[in-house]
């Protein structure tokens, strides 16, 4: 039972990060109907920038903001100079995928050039030292911080999307770009904001991931991207509540498979799920929540 409770705590902390990251991926799909394969690289850059900020001596919550801003900035730049011109040119769907893969590659190279190719650790935070024992369950203050930060980010995101005029604009564009134009939504700024939010969520997730595992490397984006896409499929492409549920589900599944089966299966679990879902219910496990875009 104690092992079980411990795994729940571990699973929630990793799952909350997956959820934050996947929301960004699925948001872009939901709004613009494209898959941005550079989100993993945004996450990595967020982690690297956050690490620099931490070395500068900034407290953890501030580094989180720095990482989010870094990711968001990349998102905006990629939309302004890459995705939007591509959409304007009206090229094939592949071109966006190819370009986003190339962008990821470029960013990994840049990160290696600036931050070095080695795996780096975060400066020891006071929070990782604080550990509570509740029953037999060890809870790090850091884990609580991560879960809390993730939840705050998600609530903030939900607030922006549901309660602000900006969010309404984004949802209108997601419904139909043409309709948005007709009703006077400034589509260009709405897509830029969408990319900023998605990038910021990726950057923040990168910092949280780096802090949780105490590892930052230029290559962390690929495996994170895999997780993000897995969660996206779990929740259904473009389905935001689905991404949240899918993120926690994947985190828990991974942790439990390591605890009860074998660590080798941790990654295989996610991919096995992808295949299973594509076979059985391609609209995602949680497709009841929201109508998917046709």
């Amino acid at each position: 039972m104690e092992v079980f409770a411990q795994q729940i705590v571990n699973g929630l902390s990793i799952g909350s990060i997956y959820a934050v990251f996947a929301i960004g991926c699925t948001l872009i799909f939901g709004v613009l109907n494209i898959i941005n394969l550079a989100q993993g690289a945004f996450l990595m850059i967020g982690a690297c920038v956050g690490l620099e900020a931490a070395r500068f001596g900034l407290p953890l919550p501030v580094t989180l903001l720095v990482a989010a801003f870094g990711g968001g900035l990349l998102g905006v730049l990629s939309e302004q100079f890459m995705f939007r011109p591509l959409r304007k040119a009206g090229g094939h769907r592949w071109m966006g995928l190819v370009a986003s893969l190339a962008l990821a590659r470029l960013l990994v190279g840049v990160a290696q050039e600036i931050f070095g190719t080695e795996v780096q650790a975060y400066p020891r935070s006071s929070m990782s030292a604080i550990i509570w024992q509740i029953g037999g369950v060890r809870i790090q203050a850091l884990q609580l911080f991560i879960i809390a930060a993730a939840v705050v980010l998600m609530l903030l995101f939900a607030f922006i999307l549901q309660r602000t005029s900006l969010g309404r604009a984004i949802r209108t564009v997601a419904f139909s770009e043409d309709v948005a134009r007709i009703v006077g939504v400034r589509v260009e700024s709405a897509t830029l904001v969408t990319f900023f939010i998605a990038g910021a969520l990726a950057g923040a997730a990168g910092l949280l991931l780096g802090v949780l595992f105490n590892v930052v490397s230029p290559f962390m984006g690929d495996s994170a991207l895999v997780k993000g896409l897995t969660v996206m499929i779990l929740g259904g492409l473009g389905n935001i509540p689905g991404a949240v549920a899918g993120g926690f589900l994947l985190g828990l599944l991974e942790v439990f498979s390591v605890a009860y089966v074998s660590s080798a299966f941790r990654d295989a679990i996610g991919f096995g799920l992808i295949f299973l879902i594509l076979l059985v219910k391609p609209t995602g496990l949680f497709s009841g929540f929201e109508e998917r875009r046709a």
Partner: protein
Amino acid sequence: MIGLFEEFLSSYGNVVDLCLLNILLAYGVWLALSGNMFTLGTGGFMALGAYSSVFFTTQTGMPFSFAVLIGGLLAGGAALIIGLPVLRLRGDYFMLATFAFTEVVRVIALNWESVTGGAIGIVGIPRYTETWQLALLAIAAVYFAYALRHSHFGRSIAAIRQDDVMSQTMGINVLAHRLTLFGASAFVCGIAGAMAAHLNFFIGPTDFGLLRSVDALSYPILGGFNALLGPLVGAIFTTLLPEFLRFSNQWREILMGLLVILVVLYLPGGAMSLLQSDRLARIFRRRLIERHSIEQRAES
């Protein structure tokens, strides 16, 4: 003359082998792309071909050619198994499934130590792959691509790529066509993987990851997907560029990324579209059409 050629091969042999191998891969990916399938499975299929062929040549003493063929067939078979359910879904799901497949293969390669050597990989693979074999395969790939394009199958595939709904109503079995293309694509990639394994002395799980799939995709797209020789040009260019410009690994990645983005943005037809003489003609024709429609509008 022959002496010169041998000298060239001895100093640039590796690069030539690499070019030929990548040409093979480029046409493998092209097959999938031509059926509108954005595949990230290339790395996985290569790994299947590589590991299985190495297993057969080193563990069972099977002749090299058979081992390569089996490697290709295994990859092709895997593609059919993935493709049958996934190809019924939208294109994005196909991309994601092939992506997941490559990762599954990588995870298996990491953990099935008795066959794959785990994270360390397999060292000391006999070098059976010869340059002439690679050249033969590359020539065969170009020839088959040519034959396919200049036939009713090529026409149907082009139609499927542009409008699969309409193609169905013309009596074309879209699913069967795409499944065949995907299987053939995986077969070619599997063979390329097997040849690569017996060329390099060593294989490990990192050789066949996502990056490999992305690289392979960039060949036909950089070279020009619509031109017969586009994948070839893209493969050679991409292989040679870093050899001539001796950059650090990081700068290679940065430049390749930048290059692909620029080509996608400013030259969506790929490098071959620069050479096509009808490019100008097409622009001219477009002008004519515009004038035509203006005249029509004036009439009505």
